[in-house]
């Protein structure tokens, strides 16, 4: 058992405040018969009364428990896994738990509410356990008082409180009314991992039944009384700004109520406001189809704010700036120059990746109802708090008068960390003077920007006469941000090491894309190490393991950003599970491992070649994310990361001509499809009791390196440039500057 503090300074963590709706809550009561596939809300008899214990928990008089999930659900399954942690410490039967999406409410949750950086579970671990443990404690204290016994004479499990040396029992629902408002002590005992009953098991997606029956869950499905629809138009190319449009014609079209321009520029924009197109045309109307037709009737004039860019220009700029761009981060150990000079073998390779779009399947949308001094915003955002703050800034409405609610989100991948679409909905509602739901077409969405940057990096390694790695250097540049993490592997494992991150410039807007920068560095570094191991005549796994051993036993430099044992651990686990070294005829095998977003993942990909096309037969994954919360959910997340990584490595890119994206829909932008997906993915977890970390991102990066290495085994050709299926794989000749 471990102990956790419930106070942060003077603030009691989980005391129910009046604002959080403490106390009695009346609910309607109805009974429903049990049918297969029904939601728990339909199966469970609803209580007559609810009692709110804290921001996360309310308990019905019949023992049904509602747990509010604090963070946005973008498909990473936190709406199931986060409440599982609360339920574990509250100690209730999961079958009696209903989950509801919480609203943005700092007072209720006392933990940051966002979906990004694979951080929900890592940052929520203490708060979620505390919420559950505090609820359990309040119920037990109420029972002790009711029975006039010592708290220590009671125990609670599966929603029932018992006398340890007696026969009395009482259900949480029966005592809940008396538990409301009880202050929790300064410290609470938490369960030891060996006593977990819910954490570590597999619980089905709490919204599964609603998803498979098409219930209105997503922002795009949201409807409100009196709501109108709105669509936007942004310039077709980066560097352009809207000047004017044929408003008189547009407002006379069928179903169009109004049309106008909006400007979402704010003073001192924060990172999440990145947006190439702050000025937009908005059309408000009755139905989507009428708005789609109105958009086609637009005649717009533009002005140029900056010069249009093209993919050729981008390639040239990356090559120039790799040699002379602004260095924003670096590391040097030993004397790499001298070590390369005396090395027996030196290998240097250059890797590149194009811009790519997020392409969440649910396009950007948001509902906004802005009044004179208040605003209600409902929709799919990964950063509700930032949206609230930026809306306040844009509209001049105090933060406390702005309410943000999160719908289920049809994909995030980083795109919905950025708030432009929420701000646009707010600006449209304000100018229109009524509630609207703004929706992007796919074309609006794919050409709006906030892309994954395009990257170029050069890796160089030097081996001594005994094929030991004595020198390693990497330089990487991006449009605009470089991809290199100087303190990551193999930093700490090579005596003479240098890493440089360089920035370049572009007017294409960019942002975080699932496992930002890591997906590129994992692909480049892990295929480079494969080539270096081959040059050294060593097995690629053993080669890496020797480097981790070096980092652990005689580390180079002051620090490095990984745990060598855990990194080596996933490699050893995947090696064992896939029977590494036992070759099968016709099967070509690639390995990669990567650590990012606090979790370690190693992957082995087996492919066959059919008519020159790779088919992924099986992927073996070994994962160390500490304690696994929801096993099946965790496996699903890794599977998704693998498919996403393989898909974008093989097929996806966004090119530019005259400032405009060449692709604007799925007929010209290729995403991985059923027939291209792996036949089988098997996921293994390292078992330990380390505090859990997230899985939304870490499964993706190694897939890029592993598929590149498997393709090499299959074709005898190294793959340096994504997308591997179409890009020219020749080395890029960098001019020595």
């Amino acid at each position, binding site marked *: 058992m471990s102990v956790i503090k419930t106070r942060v300074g003077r603030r009691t963590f989980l005391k129910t405040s009046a604002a959080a709706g403490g106390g009695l809550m009346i609910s309607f009561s109805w009974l429903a018969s049990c*049918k*297969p*596939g029904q939601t728990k809300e339909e199966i469970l008899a609803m209580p007559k009364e609810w009692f709110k214990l804290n921001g996360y928990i309310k308990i019905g008089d019949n023992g049904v428990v509602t747990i509010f999930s604090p963070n946005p*659900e973008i*498909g*990473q*399954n936190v709406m199931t896994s986060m409440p599982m942690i609360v339920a574990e410490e509250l100690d209730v039967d999961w079958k009696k738990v209903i989950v509801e999406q919480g609203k943005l409410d700092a007072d209720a949750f006392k933990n940051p509410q966002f979906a990004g950086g694979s951080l929900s579970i890592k940052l929520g671990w203490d708060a979620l356990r505390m919420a559950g443990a505090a609820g359990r404690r309040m119920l037990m204290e109420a029972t002790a008082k009711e029975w006039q016994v010592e708290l220590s004479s009671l125990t609670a499990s599966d929603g029932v409180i018992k006398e340890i040396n007696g026969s009395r029992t009482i259900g949480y629902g029966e005592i809940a009314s008396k538990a409301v408002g009880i202050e929790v002590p300064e410290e609470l005992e938490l369960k030891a991992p060996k006593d977990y009953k819910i954490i570590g098991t597999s619980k*089905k*997606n709490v919204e*599964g*039944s609603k*998803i*498979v*029956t*098409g219930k*209105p*869950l*997503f922002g*795009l*499905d949201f*409807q409100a009384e009196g709501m109108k*629809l709105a669509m936007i138009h942004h310039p077709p190319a980066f560097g352009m700004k809207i000047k004017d449009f044929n408003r008189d014609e547009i407002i006379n079209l*069928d179903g169009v109520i109004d049309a106008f321009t909006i400007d979402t520029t704010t003073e001192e924009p924060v990172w999440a406001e990145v947006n190439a197109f702050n000025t937009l045309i908005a059309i408000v109307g009755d*139905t*989507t*189809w*009428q708005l*789609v*037709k109105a958009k086609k009737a637009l005649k717009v004039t533009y002005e140029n704010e900056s010069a249009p860019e093209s993919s050729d220009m981008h390639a040239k700029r990356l090559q120039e700036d790799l040699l002379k761009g602004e260095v924003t981060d670096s590391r040097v150990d030993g004397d790499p120059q001298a070590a390369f000079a005396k090395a027996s073998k030196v290998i240097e390779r250059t890797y590149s990746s194009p811009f790519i779009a997020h392409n*969440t*399947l*649910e*396009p950007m949308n948001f509902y906004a109802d802005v009044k004179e001094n208040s605003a209600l915003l409902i929709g799919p955002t990964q950063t509700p708090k930032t949206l609230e703050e930026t809306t306040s800034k844009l509209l001049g409405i105090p933060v406390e008068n702005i309410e943000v609610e999160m719908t289920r*989100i*049809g994909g995030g991948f980083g795109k919905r960390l950025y708030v432009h679409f929420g701000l646009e909905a707010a600006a449209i509602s304000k100018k229109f003077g009524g509630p609207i739901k703004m*929706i992007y077409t*796919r074309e609006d969405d794919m050409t709006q920007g906030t892309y994954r940057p395009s990257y170029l990096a050069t890796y160089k390694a030097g081996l001594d006469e005994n094929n030991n790695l004595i020198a390693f250097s990497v330089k990487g540049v991006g449009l605009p941000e470089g991809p290199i993490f100087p303190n990551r592997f193999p930093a700490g494992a090579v005596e003479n090491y240098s890493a440089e991150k360089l920035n370049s410039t572009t007017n294409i807007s960019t942002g975080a894309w699932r496992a930002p920068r890591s997906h590129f560095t994992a692909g480049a570094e892990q295929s480079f190490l494969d080539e270096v191991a081959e040059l050294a005549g060593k097995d690629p796994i053993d080669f890496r393991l020797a480097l981790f051993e070096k980092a652990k036993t005689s580390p180079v430099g002051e620090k490095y950003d990984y745990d060598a044992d855990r990194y080596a651990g996933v490699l050893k686990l995947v090696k064992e599970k896939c029977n590494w070294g036992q070759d099968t005829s016709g099967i070509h095998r690639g390995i990669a491992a990567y650590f990012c977003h606090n979790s370690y993942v190693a992957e082995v990909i087996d492919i066959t070649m059919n008519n020159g096309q790779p088919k992924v037969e099986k992927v073996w994954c070994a994962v160390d994310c500490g304690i696994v919360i929801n096993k*099946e*959910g965790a496996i*699903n*997340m890794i*599977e*998704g*990361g*693998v*498919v*996403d990584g393989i*898909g974008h490595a093989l097929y996806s890119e966004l090119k530019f001509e005259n400032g405009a994206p060449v692709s604007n*829909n*799925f*007929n010209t932008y290729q*995403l*991985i*499809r*059923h*027939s291209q*997906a*792996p*036949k089988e*993915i098997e996921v293994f977890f390292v078992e330990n009791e380390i505090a859990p970390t997230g899985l939304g991102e870490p499964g993706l990066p190694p897939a890029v390196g592993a598929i590149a290495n498997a393709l090499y085994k299959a074709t005898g050709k190294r793959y340096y440039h994504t997308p591997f299926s179409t890009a020219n794989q020749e080395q890029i000749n960098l001019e020595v500057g």
Partner: protein
Amino acid sequence: MALFSLSINGKKQEVDVDPSTPMLWVLRDHLSLVGTKYGCGIAMCGACTIHLNGNAVRSCQMPIEAVGESEITTIEGLSESADHPVQKAWLEVDVPQCGYCQAGQIMSASALLKKNPNPSDEDIDNAMSGNICRCGTYVRIKKAIKTAANPNV
């Protein structure tokens, strides 16, 4: 505008809309059947898949004027309480991540299984490759289709 009489999920529905309106938007905007999703508008992602006389079609490319007497089934009408074998299999395998594409996937899968009760991997790939899952749940979708085909295996 024109008046259309439709048969949707076994129920007669009347709507007064522009004849070029795709069924996707008739369902979503006029009938509040929002289980059918918008993903691309050009029949390249499958999120809007419905059944027209039992065949899987992309409702974003199906103008209401082309529907005629055809019977339309949407995800809301596939079963009364999520007990269609495909829906049950989807829950059993715990397929969804974000869940946005899954209604379309289920409509394509249920149309496939009606015609081909025991599809091979290749049959599944052929029938399902028009449905994008951006989260990458393809392995689970295939498993769920096989589970629905052979629920006791």
